[in-house]
């Protein structure tokens, strides 16, 4: 387990990671602010605090790579390339939403950007990324499958079944466990008797990233994906991160044993500090980025608000 920051990141990678993390953060904050006004009739599982995992992994994925998500979708979907306005319109229930208003927050899709859908039944989508990898292997096409899930999804049998099959066939699939330590209000100690990585290691090579440090995720995801693309079979990437919000909805997490220090644990602050220290970017760029993203969010919300609701004829033959 390597928690050391070994990254030799380039400026454009660093700025991409920062921009995506900020996009996820600021979008989530805006959703949290607007949510109580009931403009979004759909449950939301926010990613504040967990941005590093989405950005760090997705920096290494292309549009051809197929990413399958669970219920906590916004962060990885935005980092994979889902346009912000299509996310917003979906949350607003409009036809211009990525799922044409049929999916809601938990069911996002963007075929063009390699997001063939996401699922709200915990665990099952782990098998779908494995299946995409089987298709890649059988057709010889150069894409990988990515299965994305939380710590508690490792309690579902489908997780093991998928890992076993991926390992048996040496499939080009990356298993990403976004471990925030919670299943709703149940701590990991109550839902898992095992150490997640050690179990996965029985099936394939694993690595453990600090999921609050985007460079740690970036480095280890990069290494894992290089090995997968080289035909060396599946990989498991464990990212220990922190969930700042309640499981669902717009409120901050109120669990007493949450152990979060919003200064220390903020992936955005961490990266900004690194970039500044390494001389790769300056403080004024950070605030300019923040402002630019706020505008982008304003525009996306305007887009969503002014988009039409679906016609209910869709339900009739």
């Amino acid at each position: 387990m390597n928690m050391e920051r070994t990254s030799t990141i380039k400026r454009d990678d660093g700025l991409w990671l920062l921009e995506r993390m900020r996009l996820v953060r600021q979008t989530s904050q805006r959703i949290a602010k607007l949510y109580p006004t009931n403009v979004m009739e759909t449950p939301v599982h926010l990613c504040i605090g967990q941005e590093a995992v989405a950005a760090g992994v997705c920096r290494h994925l292309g549009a051809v790579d197929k990413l399958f998500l669970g219920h906590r979708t916004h962060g990885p979907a935005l980092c994979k390339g889902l346009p912000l306005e299509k996310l917003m319109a979906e949350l607003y229930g409009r036809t211009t939403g990525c799922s044409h208003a049929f999916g809601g927050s938990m069911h996002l899709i963007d075929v063009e950007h390699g997001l063939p859908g996401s699922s709200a039944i915990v665990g099952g989508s782990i098998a779908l990324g494995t299946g995409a990898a089987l298709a890649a292997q059988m057709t010889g096409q150069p894409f990988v499958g990515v299965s994305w899930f939380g710590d508690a999804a490792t309690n579902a049998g489908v997780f093991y079944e998928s890992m076993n099959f991926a390992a048996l066939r040496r499939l080009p699939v990356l298993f990403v466990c976004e471990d925030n330590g919670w299943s709703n209000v149940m701590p990991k100690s109550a839902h898992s008797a095992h150490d997640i990585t050690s179990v996965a290691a029985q099936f394939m090579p694993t690595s453990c990233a600090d999921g609050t440090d985007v460079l740690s995720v970036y480095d280890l995801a990069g290494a894992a994906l290089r090995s997968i693309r080289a035909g060396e079979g599946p990989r498991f990437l464990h990212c220990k991160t922190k969930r700042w919000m309640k499981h669902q909805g717009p409120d901050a997490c109120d669990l007493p044993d949450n152990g979060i220090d919003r200064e220390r644990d903020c992936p955005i602050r961490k990266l900004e500090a690194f970039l500044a220290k390494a001389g790769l970017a300056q403080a004024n760029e950070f605030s300019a980025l923040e402002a630019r993203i706020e505008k982008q969010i304003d525009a996306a919300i305007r887009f969503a608000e002014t988009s039409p609701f679906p016609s209910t004829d869709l339900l009739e033959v």
Partner: protein
Amino acid sequence: MPWSKFDSNHEAPKGDRTLTYCQAIREAIDQAMCHDPRVFCIGLDADDKFGVFGSMSDLTHRERVIGTPISENAMTGVALGAALSGLRPVHVHLRNDFLLVAMDQIVNYVAKWEDMFDRQVRVPLVIRSIIGRGWGCGAQHSQSLHGLFAQIPGLKVVMPSTPYDAKGLFFEAVKDDSPVLFLEHRWLYKNTGDVPTGIYTLPFGKANRLHEGGSLTVVAPSLAAMHCLVACEQHGLDVDLIDPRTIKPLDLPTIVASVQKTRRLLVVDYDFPFGGFGAEVCARVTEAAFAHLDAPPQRISFPDRGMPASGPLERAYYQTPDRLAAAMRTILEGGCVPVGAANELSTR
């Protein structure tokens, strides 16, 4: 045996206080656990501070509430193993969509165990599950799967619509020596009604007439029953409204007697349209009361597609008391509701 004195043909007197549907269930669980030390609760998030939408808050015997990981299939087997070892588990699921994860255990194991061994062992297992809907939850979190389970021999399917029924039927479920699927609708949780303070049981297979009328029999379980009641009351419809309470076993005699009087039948079933409870009631009533029918039995159900997420689409997908009233009026005037069309959606 702790439950033998509760005769299931006993209709308890109405209580002198009002509880919500949720409180009635909570009280039933609490009393059942106090009354019988073999009763215990198990399930994902069963032991957390939310108490399964409040239905398990502040139970007296917390030590008999077992939280589980997201492992619905094995946990159903665990409940079955415990039931075969002298306990009476109540396995709870926050959404009935999650029951599909446990389908092997429910259908191949729980439902069949008694039959496979000629009832040398009994399976006193209650599976509680909550039916959700709406607020953009989408197709995987909004189903009502009672029709699937009713097909399976060895399962009883209970769908209370009122606080009084919920409490009485829950005791009957816990008392039963065979598997019972107890389906609660989330949208009924805040409804209120008279509930007796003590333990009482309501028999399975005994329907309840919610509204009296002479021109149309409407059969509707769970939330559909309450919506139909509102429709009948607000629109003054001459409808005999029958809530089956348990869809399996089914109280066919009460339904048939009503149809013999009204000569017309409508089944309102909040489930997918093909097969299932609605089809069964129509088929059996036709069989039993063919000569008394002035018109073919009609059905209202969901469209034949997964639930959409967006508010306007949801509001179109699900019925409302007003739309139900309009449909009943159409039938009362001799017309038909266009349910058949919906069945063919899947052929797109």
